[in-house]
């Protein structure tokens, strides 16, 4: 059998970290290697637990999203209405996003499996946002 997918959870809300942990109760191919608050120690800690996938609160600074996405594949966790922050995180290197309020365990499991394969995970609404951005920037760059 393949090695399990190693997942780390970084969010300041302890209760939420536990909830996220339980998303993966039913997935034998996913192992939670640790959970932590975000902060300056996040990066050294991630080096220690070396996850394949990090579930990261979207409030994390963009520069840190970038640093973490060099180490592991990043899925940002966000609330409805934080789309522009998600967009920033995706630009900085995150590969997917999950809505904290409306994610079912099966979706979270599928998302972790997908990004661990290098695939992007975008909701239809977010894909629409990105297309708008792409269209805008292409038009902006036109000669």
């Amino acid at each position, binding site marked *: 059998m393949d090695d399990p997918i190693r997942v780390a959870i970084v969010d300041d809300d302890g209760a939420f970290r536990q909830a996220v942990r339980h998303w993966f109760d039913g997935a034998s191919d996913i192992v939670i290697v640790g959970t932590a608050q975000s902060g300056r120690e996040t990066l050294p800690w991630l080096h220690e637990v070396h996850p394949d996938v990090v579930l990261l609160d979207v409030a994390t600074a963009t520069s840190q999203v970038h640093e973490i996405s060099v180490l592991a594949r990043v899925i940002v966790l966000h609330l409805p209405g934080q789309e522009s922050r998600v967009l920033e995180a*995706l*630009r900085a290197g995150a*590969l997917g996003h999950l809505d904290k309020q409306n994610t079912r365990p099966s979706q979270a499991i599928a998302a972790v499996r997908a990004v661990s394969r290098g695939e*992007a995970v*975008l909701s*239809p*609404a977010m894909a629409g946002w990105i297309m708008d*951005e792409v269209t805008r920037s292409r038009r902006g*760059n036109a000669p």
Partner: protein
Amino acid sequence: MSPIRVLIADDHRLFRQGLRQICEALGRFEVVGEAENGQEAVEMARRLKPDIVLMDVQMPVLDGVEATRLITADNPAVRVLVLTMYRQDRYVFEAIKAGARGYLLKDIDEQEFVDAVRAVHRGEALMDPGLATRLLDEFRRLSQDAVDAEELTPGEMEVLRLVAQGLDNKTIAAQLSLAERTVTNRLSEIYQKLHVASRTQAALVALRRGWVTLESDP
């Protein structure tokens, strides 16, 4: 609520008729027109201003990718949905880059089709993982271009703002208490960074990016 207005572009008559029936009967959409090729689709989209264009990829005269590019450039509010026979259609991503909001396989279930049109009308995009990954790559690449172009120094930005107001180098130099030579140097830096060749183009970029506005200072 007024019905979703749909334009159908496909070179096969039977397929158009089938689509029209599903749109009208199941979706309660208003089919505003049927185009037999890309050129017709562009013209009809311009004239009829549909909410959604259902676009075949391979059509005579003008293909679906090029038609999508023209339609969305013309009117970004029109949402184009590409219809294709194959999931791996190499034209699909080209169509996405051209402005399409997603694609549907032609063997899709009727109800799924209607739901998909409604989703796109709400502003959503229809993606599979492969397409989403390529879309994200494209998004990052374009963002990078934008960032690269934006690295103007504060001094260059000052000059650019005055250029956008239509001032000549001499006046700009006087306003900023600089040598005219310095203004010329900054301007050539600006051209290079913004990938433009004239002060008019530089001013347009500044306007488009919101660095300057057309309102004159009080």
